[in-house]
């Protein structure tokens, strides 16, 4: 070996030894889904918000339990029934060096209806009547009617500079020209379904993130994502599939992070007069719709063994649910008891209702929307067969399921629902309230459930600005709907992330977001 090659070799070894420190500044994350566009006003998809949050800030932020936190707005208050004032953060810079002012926030709100796509962001601005700039750091929003949940809506309001221009479309954003925000990272590059490359923004107003460069790599295939982690190609993955969870958990080289998600699997019994898929006894359609009878709905509920669903069917990756939102959310009823499993009582109720020998019913659900949807569906069918029912369970692709569900073609269905805004109006207003186009409620009420008592309490809540009084009313509404078994919640799904053991600190979030700037190297 000549002297020069020796020197090179020594240098190479020295470099290799130093390498871990170099790599520690970069983070590669493997994700099941990525964004659809770099335009933050294009889509409301969770994976979209998850990704774009690195580049853009929202007016209001949420913590890992979906409680409101200051974002670009430091405080907000309702000054009368139809006016909200937002105090904005001073000294915030965009990636191009310009200052953030109320003008930019106003532009961002007004831009949404102009550029949004099929997953319309207008649902976050539907209460906005007009926006007024009081001064550089005060934004005034006039609402259509009373809008107590406006701050919750603004947790998805990404802010872009007012120079962006209304006509800028997805292509300008995807190329990076217009992808300018105030967030902790600057966009380096992105392609549909490809890697999203980010680099740290030194002028960020908040705490500087640890990682200099972040790559968010889309790996939709579950097995491929796990393989990428095991081969060290990525540092962290989200959505660890249940089938790999136990193996990874038992592997001392790996570490898992588990959190409740906002997603709950709900059974939706249709209470229309004539059910779309007939309920039969010995092949003969029964008179009327048995699901209209509260005793039948209670019997279905009592026959569900939620502990079995959680511990056996979902491999421990779940929590029993007794209402449509996880604990701690705004409007979560603490009065509701834990749901019990009591097959004897269920049989009794069913006999009382006039079906001592049960009936035959179709039960439809999704098989690819959330982890565990198909297996829970099949398990439920078996649990109900112990009650004496004949259940024809059918797990369908979401592509087929959702349009048919929208046409109300299912007598009994199950799908996942997540309370993404962290409060009851979003969930109970959409799923349980009597369909009412004018008020914009009941838009996802697939069962046609309608209860004037519930509607009254809920509407009173929607018209109340004081948070404490509103919370009480929503809690009461939750209680009424759940006691009436408007829907039957089964389990709260959990989300699992995984990384190599001892490498990263990461606090999992209920909204399933993987925020690179909230991840730090392990001490």
């Amino acid at each position, binding site marked *: 070996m000549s002297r020069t090659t020796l020197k090179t070799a020594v240098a190479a070894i020295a470099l290799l030894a130093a390498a871990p420190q170099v790599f520690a500044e970069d983070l590669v994350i493997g994700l099941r889904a990525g964004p659809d566009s770099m335009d933050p006003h294009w889509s409301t998809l969770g994976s979209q918000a998850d990704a774009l949050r690195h580049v853009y800030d929202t007016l209001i932020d949420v913590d890992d339990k979906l409680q409101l936190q200051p974002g670009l707005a430091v405080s907000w208050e309702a000054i009368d029934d139809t006016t909200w004032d937002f105090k904005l953060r001073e000294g915030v810079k965009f990636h191009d060096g310009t200052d953030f002012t109320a003008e930019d926030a106003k532009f961002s709100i007004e831009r949404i209806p102009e550029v949004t796509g099929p997953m319309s962001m207008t649902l976050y601005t539907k209460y906005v009547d007009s926006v007024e700039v009081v001064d550089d750091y005060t934004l005034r929003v006039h609402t259509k009617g009373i809008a107590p949940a406006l701050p919750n809506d603004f947790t998805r309001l990404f802010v872009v500079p007012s120079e962006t221009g209304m006509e800028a479309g997805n292509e300008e954003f995807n190329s990076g020209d217009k992808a300018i925000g105030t967030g902790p990272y600057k966009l380096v590059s992105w392609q549909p379904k490809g890697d999203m490359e980010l680099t740290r923004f030194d002028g960020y107003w908040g705490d500087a993130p640890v990682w200099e460069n972040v790559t968010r790599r889309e790996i939709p295939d579950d097995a491929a994502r796990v393989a990428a982690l095991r081969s060290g190609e990525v540092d962290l993955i989200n959505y660890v599939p249940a089938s790999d969870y136990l193996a990874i958990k038992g592997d001392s080289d790996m570490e898992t992070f588990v959190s409740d998600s906002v997603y709950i699997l709900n059974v939706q019994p249709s209470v229309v007069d004539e059910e779309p898929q007939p309920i039969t006894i010995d092949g003969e359609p029964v008179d009327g719709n048995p699901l209209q009878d509260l005793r039948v709905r209670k019997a279905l509920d009592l026959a569900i063994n939620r502990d079995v669903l959680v511990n056996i069917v979902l491999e421990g990756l779940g929590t029993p649910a007794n209402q449509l939102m996880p604990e701690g959310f705004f409007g979560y009823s603490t009065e509701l008891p834990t749901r019990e499993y009591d097959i004897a009582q269920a049989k009794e109720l069913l006999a009382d209702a006039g079906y001592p020998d049960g009936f035959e019913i179709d039960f439809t659900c999704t098989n690819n929307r959330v982890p565990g949807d198909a297996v829970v569906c099949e398990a439920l069918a078996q649990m109900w067969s112990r009650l004496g029912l004949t259940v024809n369970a059918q797990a369908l692709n979401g592509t087929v399921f959702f349009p048919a569900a929208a046409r109300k073609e299912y007598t009994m269905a199950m799908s996942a629902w997540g309370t993404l805004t962290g409060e009851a109006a979003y969930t109970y207003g959409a799923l349980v309230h009597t369909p009412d*186009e004018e008020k914009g409620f009941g838009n996802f009420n697939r069962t046609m459930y309608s209860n004037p008592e519930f509607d009254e309490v809920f509407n009173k809540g929607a018209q109340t600005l004081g948070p404490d009084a509103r919370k009480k009313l929503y809690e009461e509404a939750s209680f009424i709907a759940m006691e009436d078994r408007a829907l039957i919640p089964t389990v709260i799904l959990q989300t699992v992330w995984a990384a190599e053991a001892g490498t990263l600190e990461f606090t999992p979030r209920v909204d399933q977001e993987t925020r690179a700037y909230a991840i730090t190297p392990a001490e």
Partner: protein
Amino acid sequence: MFGYLVRRLIQAVAVVFAMSIIVFVGVYAIGNPIDVLIDPGATQEIRAKLIAQYGLDQPLWRQYFTFLTNVAQGDLGTSMVYNIPVVDLVFSRLPATLELVFVSVCIATFVGIPAGLYAGYRPDSAAARAIMALSVLGFSVPTFWIGMLLIMLFAVNLGWLPSGGRGDVASFLGIESSLFSADGWSHVIMPALNLSLFKMGLLIRLTRAGMVEAMQTDYVKFARAQGLPDGQIIRQHVLRNISIPIVTVFGLELGSTLAFAVVTESVFTWPGVGKLIIDSILQLDRPVMVTYLILVVVLFVLINLTVDLIYARLDPRVRLKGGA
């Protein structure tokens, strides 16, 4: 010859036209894409507005008519999910699929045909038996499973190759491809091998069968009697005579590999069109589905045409009807 080409092209247009109707009706029957895409928090008013915005409230025939009018003006539509023209979207992903297919077809051809020739030339040798056993594995074991095994072995356990992705893309003579960089090759080799196994198995068996048959024919016997070396006989006579079935299968396989490399692309996170089409189907992104399927039809028509032309070149007895 020219008349033949014209007729084939007219045929192609008719097939594409029929295909577009089938796809359109099929997607329409599944339901409204808005119901798949829409955010759960959206109100009826927002939903109605969106449906009108995308023209989904129109009757089927009018939606189809609008589509045809746009196509006539060279506009194949805009992806509902990405809001970029479908053509740009598909063509941004096509190079990745093409290079994967190119490498896998090369592996299949340059390993499969010689292996098949050998197995047919010395059918009783141990090596020939091993080749045949492997060829059976090649097309009877599912692709995704072999893919995962390859990843577990070469990426996870040995750490030699990356488990997925396309790697660095370099530019050469204005063409961008990962085949121009070492990193790119390290990424492409495993998925390409995975994708080639099925075709390799087929080629081995076809070549062997042809070879075994040809070796017993009179022309081989006479050639041997003349004292020609076996190598020359195989290259100049046998190979030419057994190529017709090989070319046919090769053409068909090339088409289906290009169109449906989706399993391999998913397992190896290869950013090609296969993954794009599956995602689009799951989201009912109608413009992408229609454009892609039409592209596939065009592709098959072109490949079949090429195969027919190669036939004529290989075997003068095959006459292209309509030629004169």
